[in-house]
């Protein structure tokens, strides 16, 4: 299910004094099985862009074509499209509503009018995928969940629809480091095992650097970079300029490079950094 976006522009509150253009002339293509990171400073328009992928928003100008279906087409089956393109929202409180975890996860498949056994199977599978133990959590009260558990329940609720594309909108925001790590593991596993096309929106460069094969950088509603992860991070200065923070490893390596170390322009993991710095020290290239 590729997504093809052509010259997309979008304004909120069109035709009122508060009209605000949020997306400007965006073109991009997302292939099957990709792991794409969308980054950008807050208010850059990331959420607005992503909501076009599953037709929650319909283009003002330009077109969005998902699996050869134009979302602006009056005859398009958008309900079916939304089952195929899952979207996990920033805030799980907007999504969770049923009294128990199990019932909430069953909500999506129930909307597909599946037989009861199939729904139950899907709920069990989705809970397993996100690491919520079935026996412990199936009947657990939604309000008794911790922040991290709520996110996982929300992800499971979308997974139970069996999407082929999964959009994760800032799902680690506001979690403690342990909670973040768990969510990231879940997402990574889904991508590698189920080969779900994953679109990961985040403010955290560390997460995107670690997860994504390709990164789209948005700034003020425009695509600034759209490239392989490593190549995007070569533009370190520009990224900082628009208000993003480099991954932690890179903020160290760029400083070392300024101090005379001979390091590559983009360093994405601690292992890489360690190797490169060690090589420098062995060769004795550094003066002090």
């Amino acid at each position, binding site marked *: 299910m590729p997504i093809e976006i052509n010259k997309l522009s979008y304004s909120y509150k069109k035709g009122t004094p508060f009209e605000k253009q949020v997306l400007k002339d965006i073109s991009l293509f997302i292939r099957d099985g990709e792991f794409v990171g969308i980054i950008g400073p807050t208010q850059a328009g990331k959420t607005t862009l992503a909501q076009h992928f599953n037709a929650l928003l*319909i283009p003002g100008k330009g077109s969005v074509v998902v699996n050869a279906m134009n979302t602006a087409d009056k005859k398009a089956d958008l309900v079916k499209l939304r089952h195929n393109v899952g979207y996990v929202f920033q805030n799980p409180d907007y999504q969770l509503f049923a009294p128990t975890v199990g019932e909430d996860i069953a909500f999506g498949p129930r909307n597909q009018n599946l037989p009861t056994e199939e729904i139950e199977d899907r709920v069990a599978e989705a809970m397993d995928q996100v690491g919520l133990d079935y026996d412990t959590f199936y009947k657990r009260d939604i309000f008794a969940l911790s922040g991290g558990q709520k996110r996982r329940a929300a992800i499971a609720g979308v997974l139970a629809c069996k999407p082929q594309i999964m959009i994760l909108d800032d799902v680690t925001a506001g979690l403690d480091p342990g909670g973040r790590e768990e969510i990231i593991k879940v997402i990574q596993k889904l991508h590698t095992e189920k080969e779900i096309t994953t679109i990961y929106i985040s403010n955290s460069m560390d997460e995107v650097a670690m997860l994504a094969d390709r990164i789209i950088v948005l700034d003020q509603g425009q695509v600034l970079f759209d490239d392989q992860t490593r190549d995007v991070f070569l533009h370190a200065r520009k990224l900082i300029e628009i208000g993003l923070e480099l991954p932690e490893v890179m903020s160290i390596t760029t400083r070392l490079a300024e101090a005379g170390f001979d390091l590559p322009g983009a360093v994405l993991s601690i292992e890489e950094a360690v190797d490169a710095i060690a090589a420098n020290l062995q060769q004795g290239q550094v003066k002090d």
Partner: protein
Amino acid sequence: MELTKNITLGVYLPGETYIHNLDPRTKIIAAAILITLLLFIKSYLAYAIFLFLIIAILVIATIPPGYAFSGLKPMLPILVLMWLFQLFLYSTPDAEVIVSWWIFSATDAGLHMGNLISMRVLFLFTVTTILTLTTSIVSLTDGLESLLNPLKKIGLPSQELVMTMIIALRFVLILAEELDKIIKAQMARGVAFDRGNFIQKTKSLFPVFLPLFINAFKRAEELIVAMEARSYTGGKGRTKMKTLHMGRVDLFAGLFILLFSALIIYVILIVPPVI
């Protein structure tokens, strides 16, 4: 999908026009006078004059009329229903039947009643909307508090009342924004709000209103904590950062409203009511 687009009540449209710069008390009193007048208007001529005033105010305040009236869009179904009710159910002994269908019959009296009541609601809404569009929340609060101050002597907790009212007004927009997000989150899981029979449609509202109420309570609680953390203990002993000040412009506006009221009262007295 944008719910908040058509919400104009409680929205402030910043500006530096004559109307924006009036003392909030002037605007509140003027709105109160206009609303009172509206309750007595029973002729099309008076409504026409009133419309003229509304448009003049919109022009002076540089509010696009299309925007000011767009807030009525969500109310339209109710207005139409109300109009139909009056049309078919209201009648006077000497009324003439214009259409009849099955057990229903519409009279000219019903038609006029429907028109008058719909216009009254329309104008009431527009006057209030213009007030909030041209007055920031802070000035609105200050103005209302200052006007209600004398009532404190008879034990009315005016500051608390105003605070409650203003918060309620703010929540209209906040809740609409939340509703928008919640609807999207549920649509993402395949809810089709427009499909199915009545029972299915009603059921599809649960996943939307439950999170809305829960989040509203949560927000209210957060607000309480935020207010208490800043030592809010009610209106007693609070002072103002900005003091209100009436100037010549306010005098002028006041005189104008008085003249206008005289005109409308004159019309009310000489033009016979349509019903």
